[in-house]
């Protein structure tokens, strides 16, 4: 279980987060939706232990988060530009097992780009490399900061299905930040809606659909509309 307890996080004099309590079961896939500037990225930085200047604690299975294997995917791939794709993944790999890195790269169809630099790859390919990097240590927790945006539709779709493939294989706990309610409904098992200043949970919604449903399917569309109809007031602030 991932337990996020933040008593207070200030940015200069701004109270960004106050008394936030969020618990995510092991292997659960949750989405976080909230208005721009409500502190989602701050929250992710806290969970990933980049930001340690807050009051509270983040635990995974009772262990401090700094001792937990974490994988991340961002809006940009954040591959190190002066390292090849292979070196990028080797650098973060705990086992330094070349074989398993090659296997994972083959699995996402990057076998021809092992020795290429990031800039030689298309946006979609870069993010698939970042996907391999995120999973290479079989992490307990995966954090996603809108990794599927600014890609064309088929590329984003392919990346989503690659992600689900890895997710089902390694079963990490996933915290997924998105602006797209349909994406949240189709991928995750639970959606947490946030509001800002300070950040608070306005709705904690359990998905009806299994995450394997197609993004464009009727069920997803229907569930999305149901959420919007049932909670018109609380949600107006979250989705923009």
């Amino acid at each position: 279980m991932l337990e996020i307890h933040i008593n207070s996080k200030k940015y200069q004099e701004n109270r960004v987060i106050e008394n936030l309590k969020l618990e995510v079961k092991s292997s659960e896939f949750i989405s976080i939706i909230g208005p721009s500037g409500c502190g989602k990225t701050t929250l992710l930085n806290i969970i990933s232990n980049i930001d340690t200047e807050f009051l509270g604690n983040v635990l995974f299975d009772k262990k401090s988060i700094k001792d937990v294997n974490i994988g991340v995917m961002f809006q940009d791939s954040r591959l190190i530009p002066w390292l090849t794709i292979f070196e990028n993944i080797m650098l973060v790999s705990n086992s330094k097992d070349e074989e398993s890195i090659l296997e994972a790269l083959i699995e996402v169809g990057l076998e021809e780009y092992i020795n290429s630099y990031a800039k030689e790859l298309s946006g979609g390919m870069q993010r698939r490399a970042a996907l391999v990097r995120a999973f290479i240590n079989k992490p307990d927790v995966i954090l996603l900061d809108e990794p599927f945006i600014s890609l064309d539709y088929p590329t984003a779709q392919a990346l989503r299905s690659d992600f689900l493939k890895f997710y089902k294989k390694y079963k990490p706990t996933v915290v997924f930040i998105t602006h797209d309610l349909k994406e949240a409904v189709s991928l995750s098992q639970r959606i947490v809606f946030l509001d800002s200043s300070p950040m608070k949970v306005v709705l904690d919604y359990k998905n009806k659909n299994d995450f394997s449903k197609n993004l464009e399917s009727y069920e997803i569309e229907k569930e999305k509309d149901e959420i919007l109809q049932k909670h018109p007031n609380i949600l107006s602030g979250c989705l923009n």
Partner: protein
Amino acid sequence: MPSQNRFISILVIFIFWQTLALLINTDTFPSAIDVLKSLFYHLTQGELLYHLGITLNRVAITFFIAMFIGILIGILMGSYKKIDNILDSLLIIALNVPALVTIILCYIWFGLTDVAALLAVIINKVPTVVVTVREGARTVEQKYMQIAQIYKISKVDTLNRIYLPQIYPYIMASARTGLSLIWKIVLVVELLGRSSGIGFELSMFFQFFDITSIMAYSMAFIIVILLIETYILRPLEKKANQWR
């Protein structure tokens, strides 16, 4: 072909020099061919190689020490605001003290020794390295440092694979300007207080008004620096920028 262009430009300078010397026709402006002859003489009969070796040795020692100290201070100043604030005024002073003053003071305080000579060169060079490397350290991308943090990459790997590669272009820039600055200062240091090296020889030729030898010695040294630049520094820089 860049090397071809380089050869042509050197050839043009030579022809221009030769014609000018023939036109002026005075003892104080020797022709290119006279200088080449003199260079050949000093190489085969004189002590050019011995003094060249000594000077190059001094250049190498001061270069590596100054680069090491400069990179270290530059990274610290670029990464930590507090250190930057404390050392900044000192840096501005160090940048503006004339090289000649440092050299004279070092000789007076530490005697006419090799240590004093090398120290004077290092003190002159370090501030310029600091300024360039500090600029590099300031441009280090936090997003890549965060990747290192999230994936718990070891300190050594973070330094070698993520941090330093971002500063390499700045280190290379300061190495290239550094080399040309250092050898000029080394010559002055030798001229003022050493009894060996190219600088010392130049002062001897100056006393005998031997302009041809002065130019031959300078030419020898410029050739060596050009070779270092072409076959060591440039390839290194190219390798560091391969991914761009």
